[in-house]
Structure formats: structure tokens, C-alpha cells
């Protein structure tokens, strides 16, 4: 399938290493954030989310850190595997019209390349 990773920042890691993917978001009023993984030819796949009243959340092999002071998110992947190779997007949830509209604003994306 076509690659979604053209011209994207790339992080290359060795299999078994830990990966850290960073993201800056734009709206200080955003209160909900999601990390998605997108493989070639597929739609974004939900990985993990975090609310703004938290600064850290852990899932299976993944951890998301939120720093609201500098509007920064990071996704940490432990023991990276070849199957983790994909484009990773952070998304901030924007609420408008008193909560009637709920849209996601996506970051640029990072291509994670795992070397066996």
C-alpha cells in the first residue's frame, strides 16, 4: 500500500530498544489527547489517550507523558518490535460550541522505523 510516511520526521531504532516519540500541540485549552498508529494502507489505530488532569498514563508497553506547561506530549514504547514500525500521530481534542463539536487536530506525524 501507499506509504503515509513521505517527508515525515523519522525515528530509527533497533529492535528491543525503547522509543520516544515527541509531539507539540497548539491549543492550551485542549483537555484530551490521543496517540494513533497508522500503518501503510490503513487508518489510524487508537493506542492510548490521556486527559489534561493527568501527566502520565501507562498501557501495555506504551506510556504517554503530558507537559501542559510547554504543550508537549510524548509516547514511549518499551522493547520496540518490528511490528511497531508505522507513522505515529498525536491528536488534541478541540471542543467548540459548548461541547457540541468534538474534533481532533493532528500533529505532523513521526515515522518509526524498527531495525531488526
Amino acid at each position, binding site marked *: 500500500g501507499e506509504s503515509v510516511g513521505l517527508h515525515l520526521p523519522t525515528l530509527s531504532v533497533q529492535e528491543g530498544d525503547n522509543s520516544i516519540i515527541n509531539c507539540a500541540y497548539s491549543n492550551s485549552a485542549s483537555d484530551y489527547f490521543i496517540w494513533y498508529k497508522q500503518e501503510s494502507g490503513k487508518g489510524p489505530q*487508537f493506542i492510548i489517550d490521556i486527559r489534561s488532569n493527568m501527566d502520565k498514563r501507562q498501557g501495555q508497553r506504551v506510556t504517554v507523558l503530558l507537559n501542559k506547561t510547554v504543550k508537549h506530549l510524548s509516547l514511549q514504547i518499551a522493547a520496540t518490535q518490528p511490528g511497531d514500525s508505522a507513522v505515529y500521530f498525536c491528536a488534541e481534542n478541540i471542543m467548540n460550541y459548548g461541547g*457540541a463539536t468534538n474534533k481532533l487536530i493532528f500533529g505532523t506525524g513521526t515515522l518509526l522505523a524498527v531495525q531488526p
Partner: protein
Amino acid sequence: DAGVTQSPTHLIKTRGQQVTLRCSPISGHKSVSWYQQVLGQGPQFIFQYYEKEERGRGNFPDRFSARQFPNYSSELNVNALLLGDSALYLCASSLSQGANQPQHFGDGTRLSIL
């Protein structure tokens, strides 16, 4: 359980034509959103629908329209197609339109304009 399903998976049209894309949300999900993803970029918000009403619209021209049916499925229509409309069109569903609701995406429709 089935995830978000979209049809068709691929479509080729010529400039000036019209296209209809379809989306079935995850069972129990009442909110559907549409996004456009140009190659090499993140998805861009087009519409959100909840309970058959448009709840939000992104910065897209009036050539783009959508609707939601009583079974919560949705259609995206694009009229007078331009070369720049070539993209992956993604549908996402969530339980409701409220805060802190994760949106789950389908695999999209790849639209190519010749």
C-alpha cells in the same frame, strides 16, 4: 466486534464528477466524523455528525456535504471534484459527541482524481 467500515476502499474519478463515500460506525457509536488525509500529512477534520445532525464543520468548501442516517451510518458527498481532492477519506466513530470520547477510525477510502 466489527470496527468502523468504509466503502468503497478505492475509487477513481475525473474532474467535475461527484462521489459518495459510505461509513458504518462501531455498533453502539452514535457520532461519526469525517477526515481528509493528504499523502504525507495528518488527517484534517471535515465534519462531525451526532444524532443525524451536523455538529461541526472544518475549513472545507460547500462542495463537501454529509449526512447521517437513523442507524448512525453516514455518507460523505463531494461535488465538482478537483485534482486537489485526491486523498484518503477517513471516517471515525465515537460513543457520543461529548468530551473525552476516543474516536476510532476505519481504513478509509482512497480517492484518486484524474
